[in-house]
Structure formats: C-alpha cells, structure tokens
C-alpha cells in the first residue's frame, strides 16, 4: 500500500536515513533525560534522549539544548522522531514546557499524517514524556508539586486489554479521553490497540466496553457464535466393533509385526498420520521416504497386511514424505 505521506515527511525520512547534517539520529551518552516507547515485536520502538543546559540554582529552569532518537519503525515513525527532536530544539524549551508538545504538534510539523499512522506521532509524545519524568528524577524536581500527574505510570500497570501491543485498561481509558477516541478504529489508529489479533474488540472488558463506559453505549454487539454440535463427537465412538483406541492399537500391532520388519531392512519405517473409520493414512519415513515407489509400497504392502489381519474394509491412503511431494 502506498501511503499518502506529505513532502515534509518523506524529506525528513530521507534526510535521516542519509544522516544529513541537522538531523537528530543518535543517542546522547549520559543523557539528562531518557525515555523509551514501543517494542520490536509491536513493529515500532523509539529511544529518546536529551541534554539540558543546567540552571545553576533552579533545575526547573533547565533548557533542552540537544535531543536525539534511535527508532525502529516505518517511514513515518522515523520522520515523527525527527519532528519531535526538531520541535524541542527549535523551541528551546524547559523539560516541563516540552511536556506540552502533543502528538498533534508532531503531526502538524509533518504537515499531517495518514490517520492509520497517528500512532507514530503518539509514540513520540509518549517517549518524550518518559524522558521528562526521567529528567525530573535525576534533577530532583518534584513534578507532582508542580501539578503534573506522575502517578499515571504506576496506575497504568493495570489489567492488560490488548495483549498484542501490551496496553492496559488505565492507559487505554486515559487515551480514549485525551485523544477523544470514539470507535475501535480510532483507538487502533492512535495507539495500535486491537490492531493485531482483534480479539479484544468485543471481549468482555474489551475496547468496545471501554468506549461504551466512556461515551455511553452506541451500537448493539453481534450475537455470540453457537457452540459446535455434539453429534460428531458421539459418532466417532463406534469403530468396527472396536473403540477408536482399540482399533488404532490393533493397526499399530500389525504394522509392528508384519510391515515394519520388512521396511527396516531397507532403513525405513512407516508412521500412521491419522485414522478415519476404515481409512488409514500412512507416511513412509527414513530411507523409504525418498523412494519413487513409496506411495505404491504403502498401498500394496500395508493395505494387504491390514486387510488380512484387522478388517478387510480398510483402505490405506499414502501421505507424502518430508517434502510433502508425491
């Protein structure tokens, strides 16, 4: 799929991959602020570091003078990382001022992002926030005393809603409100939740429930699937007068006594893949597997032995060897 990226997004990406002067790829050694967001399993990850010019007496007056990133991710994730660093350096912000940079500012800097790619800008804002919290701890700044909610990180270690992207209920509730997410698609575009296996969409306590609880119920849910019928399980219990287990044991015994000694002389063996009523599926293994006449060997030799000694109605079906090729 070709994304409709802005010129700015493409330019920032190409500048970054070619390491043009003025780009922000890298990691600051001994940074004043360090924050990460995402993971390789989720498809994008950002490590964000910054350095401040320290104020001699009042750490809250520190100014960010350098911001760097390392990003694993797509074109827009890399461009959003560039945008984040550029916004911060251009603004000459204090870390606390920098907290006001939102994912929307990042998207605006990029002249917009496709809606499916909003999570790239959200990732930038999250990594920035983590880095500022890290700075506050290092510099002994009490963010709570300044009215900034730092407890949310702990709170957000709650029940896991989206297992694929590791997102918790408190985090999702906050994002649904903050970013005014109204539908499951909105949530997925913004924070990726529900974008993979999708089983959390309508699960109890899943995304739809969180939306309903935040905004009020909107639409009826689809009915649950009926359970599969029981008859099939019952039908499998009768087998030529033998239980399926007894039947399989008997087939194995005949193979052991009659068939396998012959095959083993040639360094081969036979395994049972499956049994359905009178159909016995066999695969030749070992030296016999590559044999051109393997199918016919099974058909003739195994089938005759089983017909003679177990049940004359048995039919043997040859299943290909390791390559699955006849």
């Amino acid at each position, binding site marked *: 799929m070709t994304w409709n990226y802005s010129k700015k997004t493409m330019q920032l990406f*190409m500048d970054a991959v070619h390491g043009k002067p003025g780009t922000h790829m890298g990691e600051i050694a001994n940074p004043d602020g360090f924050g990460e967001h995402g993971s390789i399993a989720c*498809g994008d990850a950002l490590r964000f570091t910054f350095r401040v010019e320290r104020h001699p007496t009042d750490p809250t007056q520190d100014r960010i003078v350098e911001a760097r990133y390392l990003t694993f991710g797509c074109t827009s994730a890399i461009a959003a990382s560039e945008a984040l660093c550029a916004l911060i350096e251009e603004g000459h912000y204090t870390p606390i001022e920098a907290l006001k940079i939102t994912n929307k500012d990042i998207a605006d800097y990029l002249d917009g992002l496709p809606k499916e790619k909003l999570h790239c800008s959200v990732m930038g804002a999250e990594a920035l926030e983590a880095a500022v919290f890290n700075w506050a701890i290092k510099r002994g700044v009490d963010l709570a005393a300044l009215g900034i909610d730092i407890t949310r990180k702990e709170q957000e270690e709650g029940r896991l809603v989206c297992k694929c992207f590791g997102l918790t209920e408190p985090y999702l509730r906050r994002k649904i409100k903050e970013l005014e997410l109204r539908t499951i698609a909105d949530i997925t575009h913004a924070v990726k939740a529900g974008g993979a296996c999708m089983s959390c969409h309508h699960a109890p306590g899943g995304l739809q429930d969180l939306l309903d609880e935040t905004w009020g119920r909107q639409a009826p849910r689809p009915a649950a699937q009926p359970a599969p019928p029981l008859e099939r399980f019952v039908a499998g219990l009768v087998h030529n007068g033998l239980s399926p287990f007894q039947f399989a044991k008997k087939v194995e015994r005949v193979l052991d006594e009659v068939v396998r000694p012959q095959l083993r002389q040639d360094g081969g063996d036979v395994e049972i893949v499956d049994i359905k009523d009178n159909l016995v599926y066999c695969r030749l293994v070992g030296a016999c597997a590559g044999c051109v006449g393997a199918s016919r060997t099974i058909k003739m030799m195994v089938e005759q032995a089983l017909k003679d000694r177990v049940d004359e109605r048995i039919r043997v079906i040859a*299943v290909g060897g390791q390559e699955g090729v006849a």
Partner: protein
Amino acid sequence: MRLVYADNNATTQVAPEVVEAMAPFFAEQYFNPSSMYEAARGPAAAIAQARATVARHLGAAHPAEILFTSCATESNNTAIFGVVRANPSRRHVVTTAVEHPAVLEVGKELVRQGLEVDFIGVDRHGRLDTTAFVKALRPGETLLVSVMHANNETGVIFPVAELARIVKETDPGILFHTDATQTAGKLPIDLSGDMRHVDLLSLSGHKLHAPKGVGALYIRRGTPCRPLLIGGHQEANRRAGTENVAFIVALGRALELAMATRDADERRVAALRDRLERELSARISFLEVNGQGAPRLANTLNLACHFVEGEGMLYQLSAAGICASSGSACTSGSLEPSHVLRAMGVPFTAVHGSIRFSLSRYSTDEDVDRIVEVFPTVVANLRRLSPYWDVVADRPRPDAEALLTQAVEERRRSLASPHQP
C-alpha cells in the same frame, strides 16, 4: 534513472506480443460476440480460440471447462461461494493459513455464514503441515478443500496434485480447488495428468504478462458450482456479463507465450534469483531467506532483515528506482505483519523487516547487479537509526541479542514440527 522492476508477483509488464494481439479488438472488431451478424463472428472466434489455448495449456479435457472472469479474486470467489451454494448438505471447508486474501477472507466470510473452516498451518520453511491437513478431512462432511499452488509472498510450492489425490481417496465427494495465480505460466499444470484430482483452478492474466482485468476459472465437467454473477447467457450461463474480448484474447496469447519458453525462462530466472540470494546473503548479516528449505518458485526471493522495518526499505529502494514489496505491518494497512510470515514463525525481530523481490522473464543481470549494489546500504541506513543495532560493532546490541535468542527459541517451541529431519 533506469527502473528496476522486481515486483512481478504483484503484477507484470504486458508483453508486446500480447498488446499486439489484443489491439484489433478495440476500434476494429469491437462487436459483441453474442450478436448474430457476420461481423460478430470475429470476436466470437477469438474468444473460442483463447479458450482452447488456455484449456490446452492446463491439460483440461474440454475448452468449456474454462470460464473467463475479471480477475483471480473473482475466480476464487466464484469457485468457493459457488460450490458452497450448490452443496448445502455439507458445511465444512479446509484451507490453509497462508492463502491469498482472495481465499483467506472468503474462508472467514464462510465462518460468519455458519460454516466450519479449518485453516491449516505451515512449518518454518512454509511447507504445509500435511498431518494436520489429513486430520482435518471429514469424509461425508467436508465440502471443499482450497489450497494455493504457490504462495505469493514466499513462492513456496504446495504439493497440490498429491493433496488432491489424498482428498479424493478420502472421499470422492469432497471438491478440491487451487489458486494457481502465481504458477500459471510458470509451472507445468496438467489437469488430465498429475492434477487430475483438482476440480477447480483459478488464475490471473496480469501475473503472466497479460493486462489487469482478466482471469480464468477451470471447473471440471460435472462439478456442482453455482454462478456468482447472474444475468445473461455468456460463458454457458456460468458467468454473466458481456465478454471482455480484447483481454480474453490477451490472456490466451500471454499463456501461450509463457508456455512456449517456460523451461528456458525458468532456468534463467532461477539463476538470477539464486545469484541475488547469494550476493545479498554475503553482504547483509542477520538475514533470513524465507522458504529456503522448501520447493520454491524460481522467481521469488523473500528476505527478512532482523532489526529493521520493511516500509523504510521500500521507500529508499523506490528512491533508487527499484520496485519491490514488503510484508511489514506498515505497508499492509493493518498493524500486523504478513500472515504468511507469522504462520511460518519468522522471529519477531525480523518479521517486520521482510522484503520480496520477484523477477520475471524480462529481468536481467543488470537488474540483479543494481539491487545488490543498493539494498545492503538501505539496510545499513536503517540499522544505523535502530535502537537495537550497535553501529560500531555492526551487530545487534547485547540486549537485542537477547531478544534474538528469545525470538528464535519462541519459534522453535511454537513450530516443533514432527516432520523436521
């Protein structure tokens, strides 16, 4: 800048001979082949000839077993929904977890309509789990088995002839469909020979140097299958709608051309692909060749680069004039990477970094040279930006090495396949 086209599993360049063959059917022989006047005989005869050509190259017993459609997606939909509607007493379908969406999504739709569908998995090389396949078959209950001939992403070839035989030996009442979109014109297909147990086969024009907008569906005589498009009497009442004459002619001509030089093309394309694989493997570390241990189409090379993301590779390649594609999440419109690579258990450190180069008979040594020149730098550029890569040591950082170990271990556990040597 010269364009290097290495995305032939997505679509192909139309052969000049094909353009020439279809040209008269626009401004000169534009008549409706169903019309009664003399002038309409030309288009009608051209369709009949194309039908005979396609039938001959597939080994079909009768030209009437070939239906022309608008694309392989229509062929697949017609085949699957058609047999479901014609056989209401059976409600179970078997397919694979790695089908093209034109089959996979139809399978999911059948589940929504109340049928039972088994999606059979593959091993780490992309080979079908034949044990699970056999176990899934239910004599007297299974309606349809649909297994693709070769995978569009990895090029891995499934033993369709043998699977169809197993199905028919299990229960001749089970129908067998194969999506041969990636193999028609590339592999020999003989529906009277080793593929004689296949009932339905789909193919597409634009994967074999015909234009987009035409496909075909083989329906073995006597197979119960209701039409998808209802209306006029075209295609013996099995696919309504005025025939797309020029494109049908194109499909016939394209298949004829492909089969005429198939053996030589396959050898030459395989040599190009093998060299590309060898040279890239020598230049890029932490690279997986997906499907390497399985029989593969000669033209397809699917790679997964650890610790980089596919979309960034495509944009850089594109800037260098190279067309390829990726199974990364960011290129798919979903947030999940390729369902095929996930089914194969490609490690999570590499599954987002997949890239597919697919060649054709028009590919050249210069094309391969250009990719070998550009692609290693593209990967290096992204690894330089990656938080998991140590640029100085040119290998993953220690914590990323641990991720890699974990990823490989996860794959080993999830795919402890009984068929591994």
